[in-house]
Structures are given as C-alpha cells and as structure tokens.
C-alpha cells in the first residue's frame, strides 16, 4: 500500500488542498507543481540555502522537508514576502544596493534576511553573518546583502 496523501496547508496566505505522492521534497513541489519558482534547488542536501522558505514562520531548507510534513502548516516563499509593485523592505533594499549578481541564491537569501529583519532587528554584523551562514552566494561576498539589510533595518553596521 503506497498511497497518495491528502494535504491541506497554506501557501503564501492561500489555502490549498492537494493530493500527492509523499516521496517528493517541499522544494520540488513548490518549484515544479505549485508554481512558486522563486524556490531554487542548489545542492539538494540542505547546505546552500537557495531553497529556503518559511515553515510556520521559521526558515527551513525546503529540499530537506518531505512534502507530507507540511500538512496543516503554513509555507511562505519569496513570492509571499512582497510583490514587484510592493516589495518588502529587504527586497527594496536589495535593489538599491545592487545586492544581486547571478541571482540564483537571492530568493532564499531574502527569505532568511527578511526573517532576521523581523526577529533580530538589533543583530550585530557577526550575528547576522552567523544567521545567514546557511545561504551560500558564490558571486557577491555577502557584503552588499548585509548593507541592504542594514538599510532595511535603518541601522548602521556594528560588531555587537
């Protein structure tokens, strides 16, 4: 008996009911089925953070979550944080700071930094670097993104 599972959950604020095979990751489901293509697959082993989403408000690497684990829970992707016409403060600051080069890591990075923006607004630079160490970027060297977060927070760099 290897049946499908019926799941009900919230994706970016909208209720969804889907019947699906359990043997897929949340990352693949969000990107390939749900159409939230901001969720990127990088390493598929939970190291690079490109697939980061919020699960019940906490950042997770969606490539390590099996899709049935989200039943009854709430998922937010980069699409749920803001719109082109109404970006959130971190998204807006990324544009102002040219904090994007190739862009592949950026949706996951924005999810993590938006979470830091909301929950650790007083974080020092070393604390920000520690919290964002699960989002690898091979282009920028991270400095522009930290400056963007500082602008979004309205605070200056400090070492704690």
């Amino acid at each position, binding site marked *: *008996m290897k049946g499908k599972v019926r799941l009900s959950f919230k994706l970016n604020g909208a209720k969804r009911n889907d019947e699906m095979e*359990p043997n897929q*990751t949340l990352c693949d489901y969000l990107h390939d089925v749900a159409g939230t293509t901001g969720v990127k697959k990088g390493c*598929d082993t*939970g190291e690079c953070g490109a697939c980061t989403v919020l699960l019940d408000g906490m*950042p997770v690497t969606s*490539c*390590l979550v099996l899709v049935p684990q989200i039943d009854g829970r709430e998922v937010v992707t980069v699409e749920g944080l803001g719109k082109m016409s109404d970006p959130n403060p971190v998204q807006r600051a990324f544009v102002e700071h040219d904090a994007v080069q190739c862009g592949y890591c950026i949706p996951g990075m924005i999810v993590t930094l938006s979470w830091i923006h909301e929950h650790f607004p007083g974080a020092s630079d070393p604390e920000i670097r520690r919290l964002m*160490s699960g989002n690898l970027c091979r282009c920028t060297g991270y400095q522009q993104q930290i400056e963007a977060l500082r602008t979004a927070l309205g605070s200056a760099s400090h070492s704690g």
Partner: protein
Amino acid sequence: MKSFQYLAPIPRFEYLAPRTLSEAFKILGVHGKEAAIIAGGTDLTIALKERTAAPKVVIDLRHLRSELGGITISKGVLRIGALATFSEIEASPLAGKYANSLREASANVGTLQIRTIATLGGNLATASPAADSAPPLIALGANVTILGRSGNRTLPVQSIFTGPKRNALQVGEIISSVEIPAIEEVRSAWTRAAVRNENVLSAVSVAVATTVHDGKFGASRIALGAVAPTPMLAETASRAMTGSEATAEQAEKVAALAAEDARPISDIRASARYRKHLVQVLTRRLIIQVLSEDGLS
C-alpha cells in the same frame, strides 16, 4: 567519494503520521523493520535521496509533540523531549542554566535552516560519530529514555551509540527524551574545531562538565566527538580531573590525558595526529574557560 544522485527521485513509500503513541507503536508493530521514523527529517531526507535508506513506510512523529517534545524541569532533572529542535534548545533559558554546553552546541549545529527543524532525538538516533549534541550530554551525565511497545528503558547517552551511524534502538523502539541532572553549580562548556566557523561538520568537538569548590574540581567529565567510532567519555582525563587542583597547570595535564584517551582516524576532515592535537588544545581551553567563570560570578 560517492557521487550524489542529484536527479534520482526518492523511491515511493507509504507515509503515516500517528495521532497517539499507542497508534505509533501499533504501526511500528506491523511494519517493524520496513519502517523509518521521521522527526525533523534533515538526515532521513538526504538518506532517501542517497538511497542509503529505502523504507517502505515512513512514520512521522510530528503529532506527538505533547508526548515527545518540550523542555521541562522536575525533581532535579532537566528533561528535553526527543522532538525538541536545536533552535528551541538554543533559545531555552533552562538549557542555558543547567546545560550550557548543550545550548552552545545546539547553537552551532548545521545552519539556521537546519536548527529550526532538526531534533535532539534525531541527532542521537542518526548516531554520527560527530553528532554535536552528544559530547555535552555525555559530559553532563545525561540518560536517554527509550519507549517500546513492551515498556521503557533508560540508557546513558554514550550507550545509544554502538558504532558509526549505528544505534542501540531495537526494532519498534523510539527515543522519547533525554534527562540531564539539573545541578546549579555544574559548569559546562562545549567547543569544536572545523574547517570553517559555520555550516560545517566538526573535525573534533569537546565538552566539559565540572564543579569548582575550595580551589578543587568536583566530579568532572570530559567527552569527545569525532575522535572515535562513537562520541566518547575521556575516562582517564575525567578521573584525573575529578578532585584535583583547579589550576591552569592541572588543565594542561588533563588535556594531555584527553588526547591520549582519543582514538581518532584520519579522514577528509582531519588527520588522526591533528585530531589528537586538537583534543589537547580544545580541552585545555575549555577547562580554563570554566575556571574563569569565577571572575564573572
């Protein structure tokens, strides 16, 4: 190195999420060896992709948080539920007060995105020699409570590790919690060495738990990770530290004994010789760190 099957789909399995412990044991009774238990899933999901695990049934414990989660204190024992995540332990004032070493290790497991879902019980069940939660728990003298259909049993944390990625759980058993003696005077600390500061597996990790009275160490335990097939108690070093003079010179001697206790191999993360050196350096640092808490209190 084994190549990672990036595009291989996860084989099919049946997914079950029991609502009660008795339902969980019933399912485990039926499916036994063919079942894998998922807590946070950060280890199992990778194992499914790499085909190192191929269960016919995956049993998700997420509805059992009231039985298997939480961080509470009662009758001098700090109980951490198996489903407690590393983020929860990192943020727990109780863990900070009675198990500071575990709190420090929890704050450094994996990445933020791992810590929010990875659980203490899962870390122990995976039984990696480098499991960061193990040395603090071993040094603190913690026990693991295991539930089975026919009853409960309790093991010292080091006994749940039986070899690399091998645990002492019988088919149908699950870890329910970890119990740590809650003693206010106990000072504990954890540190590690690795190729970078974050998002990394430990090349060596060390935890110390001790008390200091009238210039002497009380009962003391030093535990080591990633220097043997399982996390281990450094027995000679722990014995030598217990009851000895609480001085920097003694820290030096104990650290040298800890390096002798270690039984490391050479692998991708460090050579055996370098690991022994790291055990000595980190142990000395930790002992001096817990001694210096006098200046703070």
